[in-house]
């Protein structure tokens, strides 16, 4: 599903973020990428999304080498990925309803389908009373739930979560992780980047530990050890 072959990423100011990284994430896996802040977790996610290109090596997403891929192909692949971020990355000038509907509009779904699906998913995440509110009018937990609704609405094949619980209290953190586990049980691939020791230790799933831009450990049922 996702494959890194000897990937190195060096930024323009000669900062080496990733060094000779190779990894393979299979379909239906739940993989956590852990490490200290600035170790390169977000860079790995940006490389998977084709938002950045490796300085050397190859990144494959669904057998497509992103370095050579046509921009239209990359956009099409991104539509198969649902993303959840620590800072939510919601569309601040769109309402709750429009934020979720936008993802379906991007996919080219019909208006009737959008009108049916969006209220349903907003009800599931408990935001049915806030459809006309803007993200700035929601609490942190509500914003993250909206981000999750947006990530799930198109039934993507892959869910990428970059520090999704960074700004949440323990109750909301538990809810988000539970949702990720549930979606993984339906056969979706989940990539979780975090530095939250407690979450990783409870998950009991595959853990890739990064240090100084390199893979320190890659364990099938790993723990948070740095």
């Amino acid at each position, binding site marked *: 599903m996702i494959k890194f072959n000897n990937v190195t990423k060096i930024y323009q100011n000669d900062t080496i973020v990733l060094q000779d990284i190779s990894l393979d994430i299979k379909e239906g896996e739940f993989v956590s990428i852990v490490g200290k802040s600035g170790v390169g977790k977000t860079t790995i996610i940006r490389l998977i999304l*084709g938002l*950045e290109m490796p300085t050397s090596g190859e990144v494959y997403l669904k057998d497509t080498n992103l370095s050579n891929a046509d921009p*239209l192909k990359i*956009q099409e692949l*991104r539509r198969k990925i649902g993303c959840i971020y620590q800072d939510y990355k919601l569309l*601040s000038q*769109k309402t709750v309803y429009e934020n979720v509907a936008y*993802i379906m509009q991007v996919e080219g779904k019909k208006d009737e389908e959008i009108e049916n699906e969006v209220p349903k998913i907003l009800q599931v995440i408990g935001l049915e009373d806030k459809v006309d509110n803007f993200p700035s009018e929601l609490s942190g937990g509500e914003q993250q739930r909206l981000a999750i609704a*947006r990530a799930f609405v198109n039934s993507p094949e892959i869910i990428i979560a970059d520090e999704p619980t960074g700004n949440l209290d323990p109750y909301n953190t538990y809810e988000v992780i539970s949702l990720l586990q549930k979606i993984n049980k339906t056969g979706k691939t989940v990539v979780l980047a975090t530095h939250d020791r407690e979450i990783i230790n409870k998950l009991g799933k595959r853990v890739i530990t990064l240090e100084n831009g390199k893979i320190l450990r890659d364990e099938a049922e790993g723990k948070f050890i740095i």
Partner: protein
Amino acid sequence: MPTNFKRILDFAINDFNRNKGISIAAIFVLTITILLVTGLVFFQGMAGYLTSQIKNKIDITAYFVDGTSEQDILSVKDEIMKSSPNVKNVEYVSKDQALATFNEKHKGDEVIAQALEEVGQNPFLPSLNITTNGDPLQYAAVATTLQTADFSKLIDNVDFSQKKDTIEKVYSIISNINIFGILLGIILIIVAILVVYNTIKLVIENSKEEISTMNTVGASDWFIRGPFIIQGVFYGMIAFIICFLISGIFSLILSSKFAVMMPGFSLFSYFLANWWIFVLVQLGFGVGVGAISALVVVKKHLEV
């Protein structure tokens, strides 16, 4: 209407309404810059009128030997009109007309009247007044033709050499005015484009994070750019309507004042006669620069 275009249009309308402050600021800046460019069109009209007036006042005169028949002079006139395409006008002035004009000009001047009386006969020669496009080279060419052609024996003299310096000076002034106008125009248009570009850039910078998110979720480039470009078109359209009305009202109110400075020139008539140029310039500049600026700015944000 294709679904995607309808969605893009809806996004643009929503964003335009939800960011009224920014939209008004952008329209205001566009209006000012379009008015600046409109000023150039008015300037061009006034400068064109002034230079044509000056050019019309420049002429050379071919004086014919005394006793040349009117028929011969008129055949020379026809010949000049036929052989010199740059000649705008040739006016025949007979001996009697020349005397009458002279008397009219010096009416009441006893010294001159007495001098004419002492001469005892009409001292003026029949002549042709020739006007070209104002270029000294054209006048020189006509003068040479008159003095070297078959009919040169009919011509007493051509006053080109006496007027040469004046013609060259006036022509050089006109050329400088034209060059100044073009340079001023280029500078103002560049300034106007930069101002509009930077305004649109500031407007879009406000949505930088949104553009990045739209890119992340796999929206196509046109799905992201479209609403911003359409908003640029909205700004340009509204600014155009405001500018067109201001131009019409301004030219109507100031027309009489400009007529005092430039007799025979009506600012409002110029506006009415050239309204389509104003539409083209104002709409083209407003919508064109607005939309292209949006396209360029969003493109920069989308580059990986």
